[in-house]
């Protein structure tokens, strides 16, 4: 079958690329090995939290820090996209979320600090409306409510740690914790996903509100783990606020993350409604390469395997977690097209011996080098395939882990690469 644009990868960058290309009128197909890594994220769109190696404190504004980032990492994806186009892409994302009925608040101009389940903070810039009231610059008192048996959210520990930060003047609100007695979810394990499903039911929400109302003091905000519904989070959130007559916010949990899955589902549904076809779970994608062009992909190695061709391609396969990069002892490679990846020959320079060092792990910056049009280039700077564009984590020089920049980079590069790909005739 023939498409205008084929996007490889179903993470945030890939889905944004598909959306941008489809909006230009292109017929778009998304091919992916797995479900994409959105389920592994917080569901928040991080802009730029830190410039590793400079300051320990989170940046006040990703936008204002861009020039400094460019000095430190001249080839950083943000540096290639440029300020104007980053803002443009994020605006577009926010409009899209409004249309998809999953509104995001915030701006690239200022970082928000959100609480984590361990009682630390996490700088981010666009957040689902259900999390906005958790912003740590809003003073007042907060009740953190956990669910007994939910390992991913220890409310007492979180409150204690946040109060420590409060006493050091780093966060504005004061915290108190409580835990709800073990719920019966019909024998199902108490975890984020099962709770979120339970919160999709009106009766469950009513019961829940009745149970916690006496615990909540007047004027107190209520912080809950991010489990307020898998399908209708806006509805559950609004209803709880009304029933409790209090501000309510969600705190994202470790993966698999409910807010990440919500965003994935909404984006996927939106794309499919607009005629984009999405095939997930393809273990063998074999590229059909021309001398200067990519022609298509065969789904499998057999001679009767179906072949999908397109005029242009977007590579959005991510790094090691997404599966776009892989390594052997002594070698790091791009898994789909074997594009060149730059890395030090000495293996020791791949890693920082301190696992959680704030400077980040060098290997997290590895990836594919691109030119100003997001076309992968070889070591001499020559374009490899004239109709191939890269987006998201697969692009070298960005480190979403230590910079807290994953969502912003994915959206900015994905949106751009999708547009560029749709422009190929």
């Amino acid at each position, binding site marked *: *079958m023939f498409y205008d644009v084929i996007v490889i990868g179903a993470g945030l960058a890939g889905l944004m690329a598909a959306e941008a290309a489809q909006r230009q009128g292109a017929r778009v197909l998304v091919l992916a*090995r797995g479900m*994409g*890594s959105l389920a*592994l994220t917080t569901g928040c769109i991080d802009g730029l939290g830190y410039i590793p190696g400079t300051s320990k404190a989170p940046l006040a504004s990703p936008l204002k820090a861009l020039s400094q980032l460019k000095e430190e990492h001249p080839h950083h994806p943000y540096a290639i996209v440029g300020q104007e186009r980053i803002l443009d892409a994020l605006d577009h994302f926010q409009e899209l979320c409004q249309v998809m009925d999953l509104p995001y608040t915030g701006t690239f101009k200022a970082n928000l600090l959100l609480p984590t389940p361990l009682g630390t903070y996490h700088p981010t810039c666009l957040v689902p409306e259900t999390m906005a009231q958790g912003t740590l610059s809003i003073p007042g008192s907060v009740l953190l409510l956990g669910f007994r048996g939910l390992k991913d959210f220890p409310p007492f520990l979180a409150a204690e740690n946040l109060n420590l930060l409060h006493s050091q003047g780093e966060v504005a609100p004061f915290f108190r914790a409580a835990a709800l007695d073990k719920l019966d979810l*019909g*024998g199902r394990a108490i975890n984020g996903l099962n709770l979120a499903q339970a919160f999709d039911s009106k009766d469950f929400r009513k019961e829940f509100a009745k149970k916690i109302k006496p615990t909540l003091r007047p004027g107190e905000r209520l912080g809950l783990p991010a489990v307020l519904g898998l399908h209708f989070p806006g509805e559950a959130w609004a209803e709880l606020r009304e029933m409790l007559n209090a501000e309510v916010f969600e705190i994202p949990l470790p993966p698999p993350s409910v807010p990440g899955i919500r965003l994935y589902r909404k984006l996927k549904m939106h794309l499919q409604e607009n005629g984009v076809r999405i*095939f997930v779970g393809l273990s063998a994608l074999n590229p059909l390469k021309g001398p200067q062009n990519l022609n298509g992909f065969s789904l499998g190695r057999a001679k009767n*395997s*179906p072949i999908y061709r397109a005029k242009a391609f977007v590579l959005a396969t991510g790094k090691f977690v997404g599966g776009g990069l892989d390594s052997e002892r002594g070698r790091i490679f791009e898994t789909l097209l074997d594009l060149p990846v730059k890395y030090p020959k000495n293996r020791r320079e791949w890693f920082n011996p301190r696992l959680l060092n704030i400077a980040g792990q060098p290997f997290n910056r590895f990836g594919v080098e691109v030119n100003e049009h997001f076309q992968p280039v070889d070591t001499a700077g020559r374009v490899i395939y004239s109709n191939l564009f890269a987006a998201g984590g697969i692009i070298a020089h960005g480190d979403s882990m230590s910079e807290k920049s994953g969502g912003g980079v994915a959206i900015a590069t994905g949106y751009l690469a999708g547009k560029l790909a749709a422009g190929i005739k």
Partner: protein
Amino acid sequence: MKTNIDQCIKCSICNAYCPVLKATGLFPGPKLCGPDAERFRLKGKTIPAEWLEFCDYCKICERVCPHNVRIPELHIRSRIAGKTPKPSFRDWLLGHSYLLEKLGSWGTPVSNWINRWAFFRWLLDRGLGIDHRIKMPPFHRRTFTRWFQTRKAFKGTSIAYFHGCYTNYIDPALGRDMVEVLEKNGFRVILPDQECCGLPLISNGFFAGATRLGEKNLKSLRKVVEGGIEVIFSSPSCGMTIKQEYDSILQIPGASILSEHLSEISQFLLRQHEEGKLNTRFKRISDTYYYHAPCHLRALQVGLPALDLLSLIPGLKVIELPEGCCGLAGSYGFKREKYAVAREVGEEIFQALRKRKAKVVISDCEACRMQIGSQTGVKTYHPVQILHQAYGE
């Protein structure tokens, strides 16, 4: 290729998308049941047997995994390893559904009367654990193969059709449409000797029996393929079993040669279209149908050829239903302890259909058609039957 469990990075994406885990607390989820438990099994330790039985073998976990861990294969392998109790008589019956279908078809109309008899269903429910709420499809005395034998020979390129048991005994109309659609495109259909593909036996834990059927099928299909004739199938589950499980699960020697020559029917017709050979004199169908992509079609990794194919029919709008498992999973949904789970698994699809007041659902798989039809009351068709309609016969 043996699954390397170190490929699993414990991201839990499989758990996030497992339809059974969502529906019941009795299943601990693919991650724990597959790669996690495999470490214990490799050490010779046992894990609770009922865990494995709650897997409905939809293969969604394998599909969503970013690192291609073949989780369902791990589940099946540990059952083969014999660490689970012997399957019950009920599972024997469901596994040998091809025998029951043969018998039922021979015994019509009496067998259909009995099947509809509430007391008999009550007996099956209480005595064996086959849920009384599940609708038993009626058998046909005039099977597809019998109809085929009475047909005049057609001249054209030969193509072999693996119809499977369901088409033969329960839905012979589909087989007839298949033959006529292929003839419209200049193919002469031949029916190679065939047995049940063996999937019901595999999913009920009868691996030796499945291997025996597999060997017979392999022998017969091999002869066809070596004669230069391509093989097509209309049931993705049968096709998936022959293309993938004969080699990876049953490890029948020589099975891998079939996968090159076996094609799903819509994929086959789409390829004809790409080569400019498909007869596209379709009549207009001014209607909106819904399409459910079966899990085992997705496991074949051929995309969604039926959607592309049906888009060739003028006037017809086909809307893809939310991606997910319908829940029946062959014989899984027939079991009393799993009927409710199966219904819950498919709920998102059923809801979408009810919300949109759908009348017609198209799906390639007979089990999906059965489940969706009986849970929502919509009419269900195989994509080829829609093509047949569009050809105007």
